């Protein structure tokens, strides 16, 4: 399996090692922790899970194993951040659960936090602020 990160209809921002992803399709924002960010960035559709694990180990200098990468992929797939077909996504989701995350990786939980973005309320008035912003 060579996962591919989604790059359509999303907006990505890196903040202090974490990655924020805004999904324009469902108006949800995801915050990927540093380890999952590294996994997601390594999903180029050409690297195997073993290759991703190696890449992430080097990048983070942490003893993360393939089980962690598979769990991260399952979460990324659940969040809709991988370009996987339905069959493959199903396989990723059922493959592992969080319980299988190694002890070394457990400190990195939660992997992905997700929040739905509420629509901002339209301003009651279209008038520009008066001098001093005095409500008249």
């Amino acid at each position, binding site marked *: 399996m060579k996962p591919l990160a989604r790059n359509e209809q999303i907006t990505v921002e890196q903040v202090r090692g974490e990655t924020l992803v*805004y999904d324009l399709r469902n108006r949800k924002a995801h915050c990927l922790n540093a380890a999952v960010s590294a996994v997601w960035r390594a999903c180029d559709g050409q690297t195997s899970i073993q290759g991703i694990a190696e890449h992430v180990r080097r990048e983070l200098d942490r003893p993360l194993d393939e089980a962690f990468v598979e769990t991260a992929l399952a979460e990324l797939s659940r969040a809709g951040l991988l370009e996987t077909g339905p069959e493959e996504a199903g396989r990723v989701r059922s493959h592992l659960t969080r319980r299988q995350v190694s002890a070394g990786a457990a400190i990195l939980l939660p992997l992905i936090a997700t929040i739905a973005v509420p629509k901002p309320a339209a301003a009651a*008035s279209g*008038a520009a602020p*008066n*001098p001093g*912003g005095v409500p008249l």
Partner: protein
Amino acid sequence: MPTAITSKMRVPVPDDTAGREPLLDLLLASAAAAYCPKRTARVRALLAAGGTDWDRWTALARREGLAPLVSMSLADTAPDLVPTQVREELRREWFASSTQCLALAAELIRALADLRHTGIAAVALKGPALSAQLYGSCTLRQYDDLDLLVSRRHWARAIQVFFSAGYRPVEHLGRSPGHELRLHNPDTGAILDLHRLLMPPWCGSPCAIEDLEGRTEEVLVCETPVETLEPSELLVFLCVHAAKHSWMGLKWLVDIDALLCRPQGLDWDYALREAIRRHCRRRLLVSLVLVREIFGAPVPDRVSQAAAADAAVMALADEVRHRLPAAFHSVERIRLQMSVQDRWRDRLRVLQELFAVAGSVTEADRQSLPLPAPIYSLHSLTRPFRLLWRYGPQLARQMTLRSFPLLRPRP
């Protein structure tokens, strides 16, 4: 060619934090540590002193729009000195706020692409671009709308572009401001102010996108290049904008301080020259005195000397500084807006604007006295009484106790 004077030229600033409310002191120090690592020690010293009322502190951070910045700052600089519960609460707030920021950033990127597709140049003001420019991420500053400056020549076409993208003008009862149009996208909830002038006409001489030739730069918003004001132009803009809001909202001052703390030098000659040309010198100087005295921001000596030579500037800065973070009430704000103008002509323009707004029925009239649509026009009869009821006592108090001492013309 003007000589670029770097922000390294500075006057020694005394520690003026004595007597300032400790919570405010900690808030400002925490915010400043986010963009100026040299100030980390002060945050740690304040935290180590203990006794912080965290509930009040987080409420203050929230109110001043600084929660995302201090959340990151404290997590980086003093995680061991902040209770876990407070750090978690601040982090939750940052994430909630950042989702909104990301949604608006996505909308900004789409809007700019739409305009570019039709050959319309635009400059992003404030919002995601400012946050990315000053703090390195569009999620570290709170904002709830977008601002875009387009050419007056392309104004009508730009509106068409946004109409095609689903935007509609925000309905309002009062007179329509000529320099900007507020648009709302019902699908995404985004609010976008489309400007054809950098600032409202009552804030000084008009400045259009054509006047900003060579005075813009690209910043990365969500990994996408976005055109915005370059630092020297931004300095004038932020100082005038903070003054426009009567310096209410510490985030405006934090923005100016963050800009002055950037390692790249500012073209102070340009900033001062433009402030004089646009008749907003006093607003520039008051804002700079405030950030110098509140944060110890690196303001060049000759700028400090120019400010010190203007008694009105120093009096205004003193008045504002001693009121922070409390807000000015409405009549005081009007007085302040009059006082910060460079010329009597501009003060008259402020009054003219106020009278024009006061003479137009607004949403507030409709809310205070709901009338059926056929007799809306009666609001124009009830409006003077409503305004008198609301602002009359404040005005009377102001006129009795003080006689506008700050309206002295600039020497």
